């Protein structure tokens, strides 16, 4: 079976129009090893009981992942209100709903990998300990006591046994501002995720694979287990009762336009709080140029007023030399003034 598949794939790759997806995939039935009855196994389920013969079974293939999805508890309208309120607050009331035109408001179910289990193992290495000591230093006025920091490496070895829980976004969400946030799964009404939901909901596809999530989780646990400032030289860990599952969390993304720029605000679909809000800011005038340029002008004018013209000409020559092209004087004057005095006070 695999042989013919590989052949077909190689042929497809050799052809000129290879971007067509394979029209179908192969399947195999999941049946009871004891009586042969067809089983009702949900994705990610590991242990089940055969409904025909009652045998307790362990599912070895497929190694699917259990998925959970959360319905948003706030409506689209509420999300929009929360975003506009944030906008108004962040800009000190300068931008209200009527000043921002909303481009779109979308709900996205964002996937998170979640791993939980019991971690047991040991590690050894060097622990770096810093402490302060007082050292006598001979000087011209006798010996003085001076504080110095000293470092000492002490070998350590540790046994660890702890419950761990770890989660990470399963796709990169730079544009949503969801980097580095972790998932809270407690006290929420999670439903079982079915793949058919992809037809009607905007569900982001996990781009990080299950294997990657496993290895990320593992390296996170090792760093967590080590004492602060330690240099781990050797370690060995086992994870018991390891469960990897995927959680789809609802998030609203509102994009709006203000003064020719697009901004976006991300709202938590569960509690309506703002995860990340992009709001207009104004460039502040640099106080230095605002105070020092007039003072310099006043000094020159006070000494001998034609010095002002000479200084302006010197600045113009300097700018021309810097840019390498002859600047029209009017444009140059405008740009100079903008650079010194542009922005908000």
């Amino acid at each position, binding site marked *: 079976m695999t042989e013919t598949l590989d052949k077909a794939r190689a042929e497809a790759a050799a052809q000129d129009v290879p971007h067509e997806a394979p029209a179908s995939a192969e399947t195999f039935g999941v049946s009871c090893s004891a009586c042969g009855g067809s089983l009702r196994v949900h994705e990610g389920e590991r242990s089940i009981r055969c409904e025909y013969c009652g045998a307790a079974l362990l599912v070895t293939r497929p190694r699917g992942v259990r998925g959970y999805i959360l319905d948003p508890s706030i409506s689209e309208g509420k999300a929009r209100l929360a975003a506009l309120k944030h906008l108004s607050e962040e800009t000190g009331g300068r931008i209200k709903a009527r000043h921002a035109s909303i481009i779109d408001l979308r709900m996205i179910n964002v996937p998170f990998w979640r791993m939980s289990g019991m971690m047991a193992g040991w590690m050894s290495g060097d622990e770096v300990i810093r402490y302060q000591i007082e050292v006598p230093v001979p000087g011209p006025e006798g010996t003085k006591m001076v504080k110095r920091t000293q470092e000492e490496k002490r070998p350590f070895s540790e046994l660890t046994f702890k419950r761990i829980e770890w989660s990470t976004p399963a796709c990169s969400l730079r544009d949503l501002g969801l980097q580095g946030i972790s998932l809270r799964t407690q006290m929420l009404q999670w439903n079982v995720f079915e793949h058919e939901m992809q037809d009607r909901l905007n569900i982001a596809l996990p781009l990080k694979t299950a294997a990657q999530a496993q290895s990320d989780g593992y390296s996170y646990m090792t760093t967590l287990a080590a004492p602060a400032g330690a240099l781990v030289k050797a370690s060995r860990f086992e994870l018991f009762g390891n469960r990897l599952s995927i959680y789809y969390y609802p998030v609203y993304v509102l994009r709006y336009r203000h003064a020719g720029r697009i901004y976006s605000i991300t709202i938590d679909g569960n509690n309506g709080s703002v995860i990340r809000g992009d709001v207009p800011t104004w460039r*502040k005038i640099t*106080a230095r140029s605002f105070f020092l340029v*007039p003072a310099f002008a*006043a000094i020159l004018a006070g000494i001998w007023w034609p010095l002002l013209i000479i200084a302006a000409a010197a600045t113009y020559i300097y700018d021309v030399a810097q840019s390498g092209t002859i600047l029209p004087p009017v444009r140059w004057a405008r740009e100079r003034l*903008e650079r010194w005095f542009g922005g908000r*006070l």
Partner: protein
Amino acid sequence: MQVNCRLCGGENSIHPGQEMLFCSYCGSALAIEEDRGPERLILPHDRSDRHAEEALRSFLAARSLASPKDIRLEFAYVPYTMLEDDRGHLFGQPGKGVWPEAGPLTVPPAGSYRFFDEPLAGGEKVIPLDEDPETLALAARVLFLPLYRVRYRAAGKKYRALIMGESYYVFADVLPPERPAPFSAANIIAAASMAVAYLFIGQLGHSAAARILVIMASALIGWGAFTLKARIADRSD
């Protein structure tokens, strides 16, 4: 994508990432063969040149760069082969024959991906995948991503950029020069009156050196007070 039931032969459709299903005809549990090569997915996108143009303007404005003129756009679905690097991170490598501006992609946009199917491209151009079979065998997935190729002029020079559809993320290697803040007549009047005020303050000094010192001292005091006020305002925010 369609799969056939092993037991009754019925056709079922599956979704990206799906590993199990129940046959809609006979109800039996089916698992999908794991070894079926990289999935080919597409991120369907409603082409909107206006939004792409706005995204570019917004991108440049956010960085106080010169505003673009003569914006020309091209749109296509571009294949990216998702591969793992040495550190186990996924990245997208654009296929051969793709626009030269397209570099490796670290962050594919979040969105509803579908199995690749020509009608999902909505009649837009699709750049065919041209990748060696060996690379393809290592790939986790092949993504056809909606991409705008932008050429524009700014401050008298030509520039290029790419804009990812759906997320409207802008990729640009070379950026136009900085644009100063908008001209503010009020600021300039304020600055001019400050210069006049300094001239008057300067009259307090009896010699030329004393005048210069008085002006410099008052300017420094003003600057210090202004900076302090701005700091306090920032902290209270």
